[in-house]
């Protein structure tokens, strides 16, 4: 098989950009502010060299994000391409948030999860409001296992040319330079806000929360045995009614089940991490092109404002047509790059789907199966009779 590489795509785009930006070289265009929350600006992630005491470490689950963004470039012809990019982002962006939370060293284990999980202390849900190479807007909510809200805020960040100056090698020659996420400030702000919410709570609050999480998970396994230990205020907020005795054998079994469950969700988290690592280089490039496209659109708008002239003159007509033509070629090129991005990330996305969805059904079904299996095991270990033929079913495909 002969392989020929015609490097039209990115280079044509680069050529178009350099043409369109040549006139603005001394005054580089800056993405215009759009309505919405103000950008978070420069944010320093609050880190600590000394992690919290082990019994005060909160485990966090970051759910795969929802998508509420609408791409204005979407037409019936290219909607599938952009929809695939958005879907990929719902898996990718939570990993960036997870990595930021991990980097702060202020928490226990942080995992990306496909859905709500009763074993985590704090669950973060995110919705992508807008995502391009120039801006990112996320709606983030965090709720603890007692049902109390820690965070409900819309975060917005802007990226500028300087964020893309550490251009990764487009051809993949030589060692890849690790490019920082251009919206790290957004994630740092989320992490800092969560930390602030945590510092508003006493050590005792945190200890209680961890107990609630344990009992929450225990009640999920065996409602009859543990439901009574949790009280509810009628609004879904839980509190500790009583604690099981420290030497309660039932509690030890629950802890063992919890360990097994954590192995399961660790595996799921690794799948998302693998996708992140596989597509990061491509996604960085994609966002750089996306940023260039936004800048070009703004340059076009400025040019258009300054050029109202008579339609009777051929030179005016020709120039107007040329501007339209190049704007459309540029747009088509961008759509082509989007398709290229989808084509190149397809193996990683397929691998995630294969591993997460696997032979045992969707990840939601696997969760249900896994929890059913845990309950059954628990029943078996506590003296109940384990009936059914599901004991050889593996919840995670290899």
């Amino acid at each position, binding site marked *: *098989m*002969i*392989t*020929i*590489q*015609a*490097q*039209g*795509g*990115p*280079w044509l785009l680069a050529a178009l950009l350099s043409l369109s930006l040549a006139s603005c070289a001394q005054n580089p265009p800056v993405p215009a502010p759009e309505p919405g929350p103000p950008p978070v600006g420069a944010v320093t992630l609050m880190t600590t060299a000394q992690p919290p005491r082990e019994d005060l470490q909160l485990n966090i689950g970051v759910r795969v994000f929802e998508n509420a963004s609408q791409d*204005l470039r979407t*037409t*019936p*012809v290219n909607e599938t391409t952009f929809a695939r990019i958005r879907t990929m982002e719902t898996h990718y962006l939570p990993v960036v948030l997870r990595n930021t939370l991990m980097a702060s060293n202020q928490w226990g284990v942080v995992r990306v999860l496909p859905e709500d999980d009763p074993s985590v202390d704090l669950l973060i849900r995110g919705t992508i409001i807008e995502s391009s190479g120039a801006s990112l807007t996320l709606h983030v909510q965090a709720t603890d296992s007692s049902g109390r809200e820690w965070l409900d805020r819309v975060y917005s960040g802007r990226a500028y040319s300087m964020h893309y100056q550490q251009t990764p090698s*487009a*051809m*993949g020659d030589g060692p890849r330079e690790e490019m920082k996420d251009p919206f790290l400030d957004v994630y740092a702000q989320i992490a800092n806000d969560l930390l602030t919410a945590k510092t508003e709570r006493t050590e005792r609050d945190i200890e209680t929360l961890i107990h609630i999480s344990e009992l929450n998970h225990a009640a999920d396994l065996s409602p009859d045995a543990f439901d009574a230990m949790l009280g509810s205020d009628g609004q879904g907020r839980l509190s500790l009614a009583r604690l099981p005795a420290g030497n309660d054998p039932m509690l030890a079994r629950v802890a063992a089940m919890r360990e097994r469950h954590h192995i399961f969700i660790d595996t799921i988290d690794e799948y998302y991490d693998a996708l992140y690592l596989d597509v990061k*280089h*491509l996604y960085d*490039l*994609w966002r750089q*092109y996306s940023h260039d496209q936004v800048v070009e*659109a703004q340059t*076009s*708008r400025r*040019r*258009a*404002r300054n*050029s*109202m*002239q*008579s*339609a*009777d*003159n*051929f030179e*005016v*007509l*020709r120039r*107007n*047509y040329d*501007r*339209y*033509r190049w*704007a*459309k*070629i540029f*747009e*088509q090129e961008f759509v*082509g*790059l989007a*398709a*290229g*991005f989808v*084509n*190149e990330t397809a193996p990683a996305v397929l691998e995630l789907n294969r591993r997460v969805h696997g032979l045992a059904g969707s990840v939601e079904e696997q969760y249900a199966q896994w929890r059913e299996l845990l309950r059954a095991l628990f029943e078996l270990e506590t003296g109940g009779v384990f009936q059914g033929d599901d004991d050889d079913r593996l919840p995670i495909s290899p």
Partner: protein
Amino acid sequence: MIHTTHPPLWSLSAIALLAALWLHGPQASAGDAEQLEDRLLRPDFGGHWEKDYGRSDHWEQALHRTVQQVHQQAQLQQRRGDSHPTAISSARRQTRAIISKARLAEMITRPDSVRIVQTGELIRIERPDDAPLICSTRETRQATFDNVHGSESCGWSRDQLVFDIQLAEGVSIQHRFDVEGETLSMLTRVSSRGSRSFDLRHFFTRYEPRSSGLECVQTLTQGQVCSTHSRRQR
């Protein structure tokens, strides 16, 4: 160039699809039927087309005709006694505007070949040195591009595929594609507010290019990557 005389491709594909429907019988779902129906409705534009200069309009002649019409109309107005200076200057302005539109129409339609890719979902008309014209084969009317420099929409008028482009300063361009057998016709109309539009019609004949034997896929990092694993694609 190979000229062949065989029934129109769309009629052959229509027969094939009808046969498929019949063979599929009651198992065919409503969605399948809808999809097949869509394909049956659209004529086959797909293929490589080269300009038939013998049958196409020559822009200077078309311009001459249009300018003559403007002058005749102005003379008619004069004979009717309307010799107001604004009528004469209006004719001059009309002539100037028509010349500009004719030159624009000539510039846009200068390429001597087009390649059209047609699938069950979309139709893509590729012209050298210009952006492709892309339209869904399903929707009747759709916006396909919108930018400060212009907007574009497309749609179907019976069997004709129509693209409408709105440029700045109220200038609009319409491309109307029609296929009949081995002939593709493209009518380009350039109009602007308050003055006569200019039409230019071109005819194209289908031809079979030499196959490159390459199959290409778009990538982000390496542009188009082509390999010799090939299936011929129209």
